């Protein structure tokens, strides 16, 4: 990795940043192992709460927060948790932070809390968070686990935002509740309905896979 970046003529800080293993842990969640577009994990919140950009962003950030905290705790307790009860312990840790998030969102905005509804509590069962705890945090140091959670969280938020922005603009003619299209714009009602979530996700997956295939052949 570092050889390649040096060859390309990059030097100094950027080269060390690109080559260092810690940045790899962060970057992989954004693109190579993007939780939504590559791993296709956590589809329940992705499809259900991506109907507007603000909902998508809030859900992404809430998930990132829970993932960050659970990764830290799981990683720091990785030598104390008995193997037999590890999943139950991880769920307990995750559930604790989901409850905190639930109250935090209710405190910040009651409207947002209402819009996200049961999906805040359902972060507990988001397989993305459990998979990071099981596959990464339980085997790596706290520092690496933080970077991993941040990378995956940002990747997840980015993907949710991609869906939410398209669905809100086409389905409602607005972006972050601001009207950005002329008043006579015809809303595509299907986009804010559940079916629109599947359509939009499929189109984004198509674009990402096409981009990856192009990169692989180039």
């Amino acid at each position: 990795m570092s050889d390649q970046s040096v060859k390309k003529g990059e030097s100094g800080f950027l080269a060390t940043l690109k080559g260092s293993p810690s940045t790899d842990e962060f970057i992989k969640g954004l693109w190579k192992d993007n939780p939504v577009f590559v791993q296709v994990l956590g589809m329940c919140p992705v499809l259900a709460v991506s109907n507007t950009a603000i909902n998508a962003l809030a859900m992404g950030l809430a998930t990132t927060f829970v993932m960050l905290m659970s990764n830290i705790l799981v990683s720091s307790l990785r030598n104390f948790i008995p193997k037999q009860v590890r999943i139950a312990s991880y769920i307990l840790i995750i559930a604790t932070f989901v409850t905190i998030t639930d109250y935090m969102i209710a405190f910040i905005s009651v409207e947002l809390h209402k819009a996200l509804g049961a999906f805040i509590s359902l972060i507990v069962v988001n397989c993305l968070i459990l998979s990071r705890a099981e596959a990464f945090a339980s085997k790596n140091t706290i520092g690496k686990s933080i970077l991993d959670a941040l990378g995956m969280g940002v990747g997840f938020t980015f993907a949710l935002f991609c869906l939410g922005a398209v669905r809100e603009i086409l389905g409602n003619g607005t972006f972050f509740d601001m009207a950005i299209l002329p008043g006579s714009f015809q809303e595509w009602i299907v986009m804010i309905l559940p079916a629109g979530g599947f359509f939009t996700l499929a189109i984004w997956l198509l674009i990402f896979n096409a981009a990856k295939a192009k990169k692989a052949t180039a």
Partner: protein
Amino acid sequence: MEAMLNRTLNISTSPHITKGSSTDVIMQNVVWALIPVALFAVYSFGMSAFLVIATSVISAVLTEHFLCRISKQESTIGDWSAVITGLLLGLTLPPNFPLWMAFVGGMIAIGLGKFIFGGLGYNVFNPALVGRAVLQAAFPVAITTWFPAFGEGRFTSVSVSTFTAPFMEPAVDGFTGATPLSAFKFDNVTADSMELALGQITGSTGETCALLIILGGIYLAARKMMDWKIPVAILATVFALSGILYLVDSQAYPSPVFMLFSGGLMLGAVFMATDMVASPMTTLGVVVYGAIIGLLTVVIRIWGGLPEGVMYAILLANAISPHIDKMIRPRVYGTTKKKASA
């Protein structure tokens, strides 16, 4: 002797006798069968209907050509199947439908309904109905705004909503009519059977004249280009079920004749449910498939929230037709039926 030895021998596998009815010949015949229906649509609804049908045909063909190009395949527009998809889609849309929406519908029908599954022969659903289902979900108001038939000046002027700018909301006509089905659903008024059969009513461009649709179906069935058992099974089921309901309570339920000739049932049964790819293969399978469509149509029309249910009935039956084929397998010649207890 010399001549016989020098002659090249042609060695080929069966079939040795061909009828010459390749895909494009069949597809062309379906187009001929649909032409009278389309012409009647233009006659009864005028310029607007012509533009809607033309737009969806052009859109379907262009999308097919473009998708073949970007996937680096030989263009398949020569097999006429895209023309049929566009034509059928256009015939299921209201005559005053905005043209840009019809264009989007054609793109979705070919792209989502056919190309994503691998093109002609691999489509799970009838492509035209996929296009219409998405349009119905995306633009529920525009697709249920009807235009009266035989309006004055229908050949010289178009509906105000026809030329809506792309992505803009269509203006609402001052004179929109109700279809016989929605009139029945919401106001409990039934239309005259003769008017229904001859297309003196409002509705989607191509669904109004049941007689021409039946004639087209008979032509295709006579040339063995369509499985006549499918429409017969659908229509018989609808007739029987609505007949029973009508006998139980003739006030609350519509007459079976009204059920047969109203809405898109004829068009759907004759031209859409008979999609060769998306329907079952065995005789018994076809009958089961037709009965399911008929049953769902009656259930959606009478107890559902929507006035018309043929589209969803056909799409649902398309989805289960591989399962019908799996369950109903013809006995292999020369074998005996396997015992169930074994």
